[in-house]
């Protein structure tokens, strides 16, 4: 965990300007935190940092209020590229198996038992949306499974470019399963470009071909509700997944299993072992733990200080807040 210690040191060691010095800490008290705060503010002024209350007033070559953002970006970049290189060299980055993946395999298994098709909806956004690209990777995994079990796989799409990517993914999946003949081109169907007409098309497939498993993975908008409801009514086992939180409530309420938020990226990383993605997720985890460490330290310091004899004087929590360029001291979190 040397990187975490390094990160902590970096964030605490380097000084940073603050757009608005916390009112509580303004007057120089006697304690050590007050001296540190005074030294930080004086260093700010010498570097031409933005004076308090005027975030856009920086005159120096670097806007000191933005140093924490620079440190965070550099730290994250270093970690990401380091882990990407290690992953590319084959060093095992342990990524926990998301239960959602088991739900997908279970759904495909049930569909095979009942001899009915699997329906895969890759979201309704274009290919430039990152979730649609990752949905293609998950589709390849699903296509491999359905090819192995000899189950029909239907992929309705809303965008002609996504259709070509979906065909590639399913063809690749069939190849992975060693059954190139399992690929059926007209099971990848372009229904309509209009949101609700697309849902009507998917509902038609559910009614006519009665898929036993509905997999809905990708970027969804207001129509997620209609797809989840129609799928539930057709009696299919449903697994949904999207990174955008606004559609998750409806998927959780109407589907058997939901892959939520960042789990969506973890599922893709688990399936594809793609170094870039593994490196990003690992670096993200480290930064989250660093953020939690900073939070806990700050809260403990702030609480101890608030209970101390002289809560008005600046405490170490105010130093930490200044280092993170946070706003005024008052107000709830």
């Amino acid at each position, binding site marked *: 965990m040397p990187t975490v210690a390094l990160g902590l040191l970096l964030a605490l060691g380097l000084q940073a300007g603050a757009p608005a010095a916390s009112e509580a800490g303004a007057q120089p008290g006697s304690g050590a935190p007050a001296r540190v705060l005074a030294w930080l503010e004086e260093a700010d002024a010498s570097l031409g940092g933005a004076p308090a209350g005027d975030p856009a007033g920086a005159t120096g070559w670097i806007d000191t209020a933005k140093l924490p953002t620079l440190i965070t970006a550099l730290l994250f970049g270093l970690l990401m590229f380091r882990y990407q290189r290690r992953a590319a060299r084959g060093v095992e980055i342990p990524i926990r198996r998301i239960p959602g993946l088991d739900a997908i395999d279970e759904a495909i298994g049930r569909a095979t038992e009942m001899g009915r098709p699997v329906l895969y909806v890759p979201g309704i956004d274009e290919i430039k949306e990152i979730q649609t690209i990752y949905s293609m990777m998950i589709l390849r995994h699903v296509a491999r499974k359905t090819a192995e079990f000899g189950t029909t796989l239907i992929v309705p799409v809303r965008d002609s470019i996504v259709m070509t990517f979906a065909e590639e993914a399913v063809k690749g999946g069939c190849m992975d399963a060693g059954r190139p003949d399992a690929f059926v081109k007209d099971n990848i169907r372009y229904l309509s470009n209009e949101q*609700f007409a697309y849902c009507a098309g998917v509902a038609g497939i559910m009614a006519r071909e009665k898929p036993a498993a509905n997999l809905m993975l990708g970027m969804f908008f207001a129509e997620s509700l209609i797809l989840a409801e129609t799928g539930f009514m057709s009696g299919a086992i449903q697994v949904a997944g999207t990174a955008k939180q606004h559609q998750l409530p409806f998927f959780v309420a109407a589907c058997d299993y939901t892959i939520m938020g960042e789990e969506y990226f973890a599922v893709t990383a688990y399936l594809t072992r793609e170094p870039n993605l593994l490196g990003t*997720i*690992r670096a993200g985890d480290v930064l*989250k733990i660093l*953020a939690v460490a900073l*939070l806990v330290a700050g*809260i403990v310091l702030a*609480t101890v200080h608030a209970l101390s004899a002289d809560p008005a004087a600046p405490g170490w929590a105010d130093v930490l807040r200044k280092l993170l360029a946070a706003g005024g001291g008052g*107000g709830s*979190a």
Partner: protein
Amino acid sequence: MMPPLLQVPPSFFSLDSSAPPDVLGGWIACFLTLAVFSFLYRDNPFYKLAEHVFIGLGTAYFALQYYEQGVLQKLQTHIVDASVLETVKLGGHEVPADVAIGLRAAAVVLSGMLLLRLVAPSSWAPRWPLAIMVGVYAALKMTGETQSKLVLLVGNSIQPIVSSEALPFGPDVRIEQTALWFTATKLIYYIGLICVLGHFVFTFRRTRTLAAVSRIGVVTLMITFGSMFGFTVLGRIALLIERVAMLKDYTAPEYALAGGTQAGLLATVLSPPVLLTVLMVALLALGALRRRERSPGPA
């Protein structure tokens, strides 16, 4: 929304947006609204017509806005304005006018390269402007969001979990104002925040603590999604109520087929929403009957 008082009777057709909505526009708006609602019964010609008018007009409207404000304003207006000046202030920095014009002329050339995609889809030229756009977007989002939606969020969350202003328990003190409530809710807040962050950690071995953290994180997430679910229901209902309010506005006698100003049953029946609903229901019922004759299965 109908202006509060219909002092001036609505004219048959008027382009003045501050005048009361015109009669022709009223009939069109009511027909299109009811045509979209007819999709609830089943996909039918009225909905198909409304859908295609929507795609056609919406596409044209957006194209005009992006053309006028994104292309004309940014290229022609900028260059014409700069040509009469000595220096131009670019982002608060004085730049000689001809440099500004030269830079923007480069943007005109790059836009031309982007337009090449229409005639030669696989040519390399459109990639240059797209590459610039992607670079600017990625950098702007990365910097702004890292500061305001990561660093500042952590910084602003560093607060004490005890409050000096909170009141001790008392007869007329609401529970929300007591010190115990302040500390309890802050603990719930920070534990929830840390546990959801912990739930989304994937590359560390799954110890018992991480599993417990994840469990609390999921509970917090479910209540968060529940509140989003409740608010989404609230929002969708509000949209529907506004549509009903709009249709009710057009039941005013001035919009009835027979015109005139005296209210009454005849005026309401001949008003756009009622009359159009009756006509559409009749036509759709006719369609259903004809379908039943052709194929006696369910409608």
